[in-house]
């Protein structure tokens, strides 16, 4: 009974802005997708039968989302498998391009002080982002879409510059890992991250008769291929740059 649905079709009488604000607030509060769909269907039925405008019947979307969430089951924090998924994926992204470079140059993998420092920085950032996921997301949403995009771009550029500086400037070799061992570690991390990504159950919005916003299979695929995709691009870049060097 599942078929693609769009967000507004869950409550057309409420209008796109009210629905979007309601959904964002409920997501930030950790309400599961099917419960959000159920609440929107209730809003839609009520508006259809009373003929009232949504603001008159339910008030501001965020306030209603908060009041209805008080009795809903909510998820708090980030699941352990999501943390493992992120950490293993980052390990693959860091290790496999180095293996590619080493393979092109015919060397083993030299881990430098910069590599290790970069990994520590990345692990710290992941821990901070996952621990403060709720407040960070709320801050981004509260600032509006444009400010959120600008913040994300500035953070990405800053992080990339930091990583490049650490990797390039701190090149004292610390340990040499045989290329086969490094390749095996990277491949195992990538395989595990992909498997964990595939296992994630997408929490899609669904109305009470099971119609979802988006396809569950598409959501699972996009989660599963994110780290293989990034790793592939990074390995190709490493291969090209080391072949040209």
């Amino acid at each position, binding site marked *: 009974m599942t078929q693609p649905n769009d967000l507004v079709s869950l409550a057309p009488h409420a209008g796109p802005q009210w629905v979007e604000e309601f959904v964002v607030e409920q997501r930030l509060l950790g309400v599961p997708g099917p419960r959000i769909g159920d609440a929107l269907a209730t809003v839609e*039925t009520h508006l259809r*039968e009373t003929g009232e405008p949504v603001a008159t*019947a339910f008030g501001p979307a965020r306030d*209603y989302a908060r009041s*209805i969430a*008080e009795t809903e089951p909510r998820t708090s924090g980030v699941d352990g498998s999501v943390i493992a998924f992120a950490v293993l994926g980052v390990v693959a992204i860091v290790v496999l391009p180095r293996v590619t470079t080493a393979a092109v140059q015919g060397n083993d993998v030299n881990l430098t002080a910069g590599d290790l420092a970069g990994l520590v920085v990345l692990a710290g950032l992941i821990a901070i982002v996952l621990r403060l996921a709720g407040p960070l997301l709320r801050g981004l949403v509260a600032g509006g879409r444009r400010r959120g995009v600008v913040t994300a771009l500035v953070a990405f550029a800053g992080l990339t510059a930091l990583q490049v500086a650490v990797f390039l400037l701190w090149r004292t070799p610390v340990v040499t890992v045989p290329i086969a061992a490094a390749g095996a570690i990277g491949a195992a991390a990538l395989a595990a991250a992909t498997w964990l990504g595939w296992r994630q159950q997408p929490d899609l919005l669904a109305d009470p008769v099971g119609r979802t916003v988006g396809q569950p299979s598409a959501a699972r695929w996009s989660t599963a291929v994110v780290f293989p995709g990034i790793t592939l691009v990074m390995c190709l870049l490493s291969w090209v740059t080391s072949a040209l060097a």
Partner: protein
Amino acid sequence: MSSDEVWPSEWLRGVLSLAALAVLARQSAHGYAIATALADHGLGEVKGGTLYPLLGRLESAGHVTAAWEPGDGGPGRKVYALTDAGRSHLAAQSLRWAGFTRCTQALLDPEDHATSGARGGTCDSPGGTR
């Protein structure tokens, strides 16, 4: 006319969940029908933004259940029904509410003031104050 204009909202907050349970004790109903019944009984118009969070709390407490009826090509109406626990809760709380209103009435009635004011406002509340 909104419920706020009929009765002060702080009065309604105290009694609305009991009133909703009383409507459902007569028959299972969807949200709009519950709101209509409350209005018909003189409680004023209860907005969706008040009613559905309240029904959610009653559902969480196990006093009502909610189930969707099928509609044309999508969800129809969410119908709420009283559970046995809800029926027992309603019966017990209705008794207490009756005692509470007697108590309040005795305090507010000017004639009662004149005849029994010296007694210090005694009250026959069942179950005491909780």
